[in-house]
């Protein structure tokens, strides 16, 4: 079971975890990405998330599919917020449910690594200096590349 949402609204992690739980699930790993209060040491006023509607949903579906194929996951839930967010707001949620913990952890890491490089979302940060687009981080490119060299 895969469920993807791209939305402005916040979400409730407990409810999302329940939605991927079932009688055969023994392990759920989750990741929450949260807006921090500063950007390169400037206090952050807001973070705005933009996406490519249509392509962004398809990209997340593809990443979730690949994670399901790779490990023995029973369910995957991805929520990515868009629009204007404030410090401490949720940005993204990934939940992976499996019979066993290693598959749940690996699924979550895999999805986050590829979400960072293969899903068309862009962040801009508003500080007192103005509004700037966040640049891609080389570390993220390397994190998703590292999976290609692992045997599945």
């Amino acid at each position: 079971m895969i469920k993807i949402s791209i939305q402005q609204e916040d979400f409730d992690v407990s409810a999302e975890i329940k939605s991927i739980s079932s009688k055969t699930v023994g392990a759920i790993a989750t990741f929450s990405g949260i807006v921090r209060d500063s950007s390169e040491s400037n206090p952050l006023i807001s973070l705005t998330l933009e996406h490519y509607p249509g392509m962004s949903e398809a990209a997340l579906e593809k990443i979730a599919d690949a994670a399901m194929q790779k490990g023995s996951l029973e369910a995957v839930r991805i929520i990515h917020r868009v629009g204007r967010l404030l410090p401490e707001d949720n940005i993204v949620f990934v939940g992976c449910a499996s019979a066993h913990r290693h598959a749940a952890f690996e699924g979550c890491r895999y999805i986050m690594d590829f979400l960072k490089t293969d899903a068309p979302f862009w962040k801009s940060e508003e500080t007192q200096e103005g509004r700037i687009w966040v640049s891609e981080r080389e570390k993220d490119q390397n994190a998703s590349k590292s999976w290609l060299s692992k045997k599945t």
Partner: protein
Amino acid sequence: MRILYFAWVRDNIGYSQEELSCPKHVRTIHQLAEYLKLRSEGHARAFDDMSAIRAARNQQFVTHDTELSDADEIAFFPPVTGG
């Protein structure tokens, strides 16, 4: 051909999409960007450094040497920074 712009590519160009028919010699993503640079100062700024530009053809990431057809939806944007 429908062309979409996101993030600072759109900020430079000033709008988020346009429809146009390309001349015959524009056959790849890279050639399309070169052609678009002639449309305005904003376009020229957006496509000044093509190493900073990523592209999608019909909502799939593609390389700059990918060939186009007039029915395509093409998007130009910076490297993604979601999550």
